[in-house]
Structures are given as structure tokens and as C-alpha cells.
């Protein structure tokens, strides 16, 4: 009995881990544009270089690819410290840096939902999550306005700015926190954020 229970627990934990891995893989940005640009660049530069180098290796004095003769002539005339060369080198370095930054994992598109099926991945959009939490805060009697800032790459908590027309807010902040928590229970994100409520009230 106890052995079955432990096995079930281990299996469930493993399934949750696999479900999380599927969600991360599916909802991570694909960087399609960066990938396409890098592949095109490697193909064009590699192809042109291969044709030119093979022609030179075979002893041909002609440049088979149009425009390369003029470029080679310019490279022979310009020194490393020429402003044009420095600008070109800087542009290449910046492009490389952009590709390096694009290769970073990035944050998932949307907020993944918790689940224990390793073949299933669910996500809710960040705007939809914010709106759902704002609706929950507005449902608290006395709350006039509500704005929510969702979890980000650095900050892990949800910040709710709520405003009431009451002069004495009493436990309104706790009520807003409970309402937002309850809505988060309905949504069940994979990483449950803490809720931070900032309440504004009438001071006159």
C-alpha cells in the first residue's frame, strides 16, 4: 500500500516535470526571424567565399561573383584605421551581438498553466491574465479602479494597484488580495506568483 503510494507520488512528480519541460519548449520564443537571417547570411557569405576562393586556388585572375572585384580593390586600398573600415567592423560586431542576444532563451510567450499530463501544455496570455485579475479586484465592493502588473523576468510577484473612494479603507487591501488569490486559484499558473496590493484612498 505504502509502496504504491510512494510510486504514485514519484510518477506524479516525474509527469509534472515532463509537463513543465513540454510547456517551456513550446512557449519559448522561437526566434524565427533571427534564425532565418543567420542562415541566409551564412549561406550567402559562405557561398560567395567558396566560389571566389576556389577560383583563386585554380589560378583564375577573374572574380566570378559580380561586385567582388570592386570590393577586393577597395580592401587593398583601405587601411585598418580608416573610418569606413572601423564603421564596417563596428556594424559586424553589433550584428554579432544582436545574434548572441537573440540566442538567449527569453521568457515564454504567455503564462504556462500547471498540469501533470506530460503530453499537454497550456498557456494563458499575459494580457488575459492581467485582465482576469483586474476583474477580480474590481469585484470587491468599494474598489473603483484597478490595474495589475504581472510577473516579469526579474519580479516574480503580481502587483495590484487599486483605488477606492472610501476615506477609511479598513481591510480592503486584504479583501482585494483574497479576491485576486481566488482568481489565481481558478487559473492555476505553473509558477504561482505572490500578490502585492497597493491601495489608494481618499485623503480629503
Amino acid at each position, binding site marked *: 500500500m505504502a509502496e504504491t503510494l510512494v510510486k504514485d507520488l514519484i510518477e506524479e512528480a516525474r509527469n509534472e516535470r515532463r509537463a513543465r519541460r513540454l510547456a517551456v519548449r*513550446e512557449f519559448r520564443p522561437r*526566434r524565427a526571424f533571427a*534564425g*532565418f537571417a*543567420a*542562415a*541566409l*547570411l*551564412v*549561406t*550567402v*557569405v*559562405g*557561398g560567395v*567565399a*567558396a566560389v571566389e*576562393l576556389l577560383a583563386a586556388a585554380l589560378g583564375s585572375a577573374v572574380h566570378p561573383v559580380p561586385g567582388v572585384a570592386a570590393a*577586393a580593390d577597395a*580592401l587593398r*586600398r*583601405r*587601411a*585598418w*584605421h580608416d573610418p569606413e*573600415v*572601423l564603421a*564596417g*567592423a*563596428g556594424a*559586424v*560586431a*553589433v550584428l*554579432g551581438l544582436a*545574434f*548572441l542576444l*537573440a*540566442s538567449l*532563451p527569453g521568457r515564454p510567450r*504567455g503564462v504556462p*498553466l500547471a*498540469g501533470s499530463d506530460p*503530453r*499537454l*501544455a*497550456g*498557456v*494563458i*496570455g499575459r*494580457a*488575459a491574465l492581467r*485582465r*482576469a485579475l483586474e*476583474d477580480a479586484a*474590481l469585484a470587491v465592493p468599494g*474598489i*473603483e479602479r484597478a*490595474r495589475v502588473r504581472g510577473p516579469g523576468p526579474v519580479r516574480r510577484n503580481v502587483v495590484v494597484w487599486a483605488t477606492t473612494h472610501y476615506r477609511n479603507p479598513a481591510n480592503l487591501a486584504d479583501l482585494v488580495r483574497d479576491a485576486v488569490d481566488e482568481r489565481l*486559484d*481558478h*487559473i492555476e499558473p505553473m509558477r504561482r506568483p505572490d500578490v502585492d496590493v497597493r491601495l489608494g484612498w481618499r485623503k480629503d
Partner: protein
Amino acid sequence: MRIAIALTGAALFLCGGAALAAGLGAFDALAALSAGASGGPLSARPLIDVAVLRFVEDNTWFLVTAAVVAEVAALAGQLWLVLQCRALIHRRWPDVDARTRVLARSAAEDLNRDARDLPGVEDSRVRLTGTVVRPRLRMRIVCAGDAHLSEIYGELGAGPVERYRYMIGMPDLPVVIRFRSASVRFGRRRRPKPDIH
């Protein structure tokens, strides 16, 4: 994909950075040590220097090796492009046999109907994507703002999605569900004013 982008970026960054450093005179002292002061500082020399041309003429293997490396890079780039285009096309048109496609179409209708019957679900769309080796079912569910998402997600996974897998004969088919709110507005929200008659 990400590793290939990182390698391309690193190569470009190193080449650009090295050229920038050479132009700003960072390697002048090093070049003077190795070749003496005969050619002047490295930053003042042309990009295609006489010394480079002489080295290429003396070592015939260099051009052939460089050409082979460039050819391999060009072929790898072409393969990478083809793989990306293939993945892009198969996101829209799945690479599965005709029988599976017909089964998937009828199963999708059932799945959409079952999903729309769940409380809080307003619309549902599904699409089978990918290849026979790596298939995916992508679902887009539009829900009411106050819908019980975790319940809908659990119900979908336990019932309709499992039936879909069974119908098309892919028991391990990964399913990706995107939930959307029926109406998403941005900015600060206000409680709606009550109607006064």
C-alpha cells in the same frame, strides 16, 4: 536553432571586434614584435596586405582549405534554411498521410464541439501540425473573463483531447492549448457606473 544562432553571432562578434581592435591600434605592438618595424603599424596597413598575399602564394594549401571550409559553411547554411522553411510549412500543413488527415478532420469537429460545451468556453479551434515523427495538436480556446481555466484545462485533457488522440491513432500526441480571454482591453480598469433611471 538557438545554438546555431549563437555560433553565428559569436563568429561575427569576434571578427568585428578583432577588426575594430586592429583599426584602433590594439595589435600594433604585437605586430611590431613579430615582424619588426618594417611594415609600419598594423592599423596603418591595408586590409589585403602584401604579406598576406605572399603567404597565400607560398602556401597553396591555404586557399583550398579555406574554400572547403567556406563550402561546408554554405552547405550547412542551406540545410539550416531548408529545415526552417520545412518547419514553417508544417506548422500550417501537417506532413501526415491522407488517412490520418481525414481522421484528424472529423476528430477535430468532435473536439471543437466537446470543447465548446464546457462551461465558460466561447470558441475553440484546433489544428494538427508537424510531421509524422513530431506531430502537434494546437488548440486555441476563447474563454469568458471569469472562466474557471484550471477546470477547463483539466476537463479538456482528460476527455475530449484523449478521445481525439484515440480517434487518430496517436496516443502520445503532444497537445498545446492557448487560452484567450473573450475581450482583452488594455490600460487602467474602472468599475462600470450603475445605470441611473
